[in-house]
């Protein structure tokens, strides 16, 4: 058993990248080629306005009430913090909605950046650009409290169960690559569908990122429990990044803003406010 400290890895990874990218100068807000990061200098989709995209619908705890303009929920708050850091007023932020596919299809984008828990991977980085991570999370296993799967304490214990996850998530990759259960994991369009399948008894357990797991077990499906946090190597850590069109000139400026928010503790504070949760959770070891 260990007490989960959710924010530890955020600081580590962001700082590491900051050091790597900027030689430790976290206040640098100009791009490598010297272009400025002032509101008037940025190459925006809509001049003078920061256009931010998120999912349709957007789920808590990332966006509360599916309305990012209320600035409530972790990702909504991060978007406004980035905007403020870049010099925009909250009124200069507009929101658009994109499906997962739309956001990554080739062709012009209608957003400056998109955030909906996109995990940063090398393969994806070939077609889009990512910011430095704004959050790093573990994967957690969720099941009904009275299910036999709740007894599991190692990854090997999970092999005989049917485990599901949302399509396109590090959670699904973790099941396939690390657990490799006897039954290939069903892959659902949304976390809602995954929950329906758990309810229907079609899967024994689901894998989510930890904040989503907290929210689901606490609010949406109170008779479920977090069986445990799934142990992962540093390389498998799930790092969420802002998604940009490939080659977007904004990446350097937004990275500068994120690094400043990390350095002054804003990202940690927002995560604490919207995502942190206390409790004893066991680790399911490999």
């Amino acid at each position, binding site marked *: 058993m260990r007490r989960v400290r959710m924010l530890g890895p955020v600081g580590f990874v962001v700082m590491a990248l900051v050091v790597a990218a900027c030689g430790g100068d976290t206040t640098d807000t100009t791009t490598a080629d010297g272009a400025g990061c002032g509101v008037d200098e940025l190459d925006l989709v809509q001049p003078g306005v920061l256009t931010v995209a998120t999912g349709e619908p957007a789920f808590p705890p990332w966006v509360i009430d599916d309305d990012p303009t209320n600035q409530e929920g972790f990702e909504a708050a991060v978007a406004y913090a980035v905007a403020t850091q870049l010099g925009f007023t909250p009124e200069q932020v507009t929101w658009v909605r994109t499906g*997962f*596919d739309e956001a*990554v*299809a*080739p*062709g012009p984008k209608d957003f400056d950046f998109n955030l909906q828990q996109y995990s940063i*991977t090398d*393969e*994806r980085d*070939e*077609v*889009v650009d990512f910011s430095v991570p704004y959050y790093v999370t573990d994967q957690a296993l969720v099941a009904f409290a009275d299910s036999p799967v709740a007894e599991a304490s190692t990854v090997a214990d999970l092999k005989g169960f049917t485990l*599901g996850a949302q*399509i*396109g*998530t590090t959670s*699904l*990759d973790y099941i396939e690559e690390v657990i490799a259960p006897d039954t*290939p994991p*069903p*892959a*659902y*369009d949304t976390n809602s*569908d*995954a929950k*329906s*399948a758990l*309810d*229907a*008894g*079609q*899967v024994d357990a689901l894998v989510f990122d930890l904040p989503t797991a907290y929210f689901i077990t606490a609010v949406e499906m109170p008779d479920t429990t977090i069986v445990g946090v799934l142990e992962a190597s540093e390389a498998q850590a799930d790092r969420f990044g802002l998604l940009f069109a*490939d080659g977007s000139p904004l990446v350097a400026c937004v990275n500068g803003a994120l690094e400043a928010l990390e350095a002054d503790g804003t990202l940690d504070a927002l995560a604490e406010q919207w995502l942190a949760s206390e409790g004893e959770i066991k680790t399911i070891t490999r």
Partner: protein
Amino acid sequence: MISNRPTGLLPSWRRNARKEGARVVLISTLSTIVFAGVAIWGVLSSETWPRVREQFFSARHFQEVWPAVLSGFWLDVRMFVVAEALILAAALIVAAARSLRGPVFFPIRALAVVYVDLVRGIPLLLMILVLGFGIPALDIPGVPRSALFWGVTALVISYTAYTAEIYRAGIESVHESQRMSAQSLGLTQVQALRHVLIPQAVRNVVPALLSSFVSLQKDVALVFVLGVREGVREAQIYNARTFNYTGYIAATVLFLLVSIPVARFTDWYGQRVRRRRQAMSS
């Protein structure tokens, strides 16, 4: 006209048709080349073509995704065969029930009408979601929970309604005199349907049935909303992981490999039926 045509080995109208045919082939070939050329030039000259090619038609991604899509597609094929067999049988029963005449059979007719009206109005995707996630969640002992089972069940329920209408069109296309002569020979309604009307009806609607085969063959993929890992879902999983769409192309190729032969067969069969009719009427 047709009944007047000469009956020689190579009649004059066919010799003319041959010459005419060569010209038609030439023109259509040229025009196809020009059209295809313009279309291909339009695509290739696009500034973003290299990027589109990499994201949709990448050989490397194709190789990587192919085994998963192929094994998923095999599940599609099996679902299709099971579903189609059940649909053909169930739809025939519904159509026959709807074709019964007389006040005694009113409740059966009404039931068939309500079923067809209701089910055709429900989008297939909703049917799959409601049956697939809804019924297992009721937790009724003895009722299967499998997403695959309920997905195929939803397909059968939905397609049975459409297919019953195809059968019914076939039954109604058989001339009324057939029904009456069958009855005058002492056959009951059910016997007349079974031995006289349905055999002729089915022959009339084979092309329409085959066309609905093709449609079902693609719609089986919709059970992916229940998390079932059939071919399209495997492509989606790959796309979601890598942001590359080549998996969808792999799935498309597999679906075409099945649907194009069926479409060609449908045309061939339709023409054969037409020729036979003409031969009979001449």
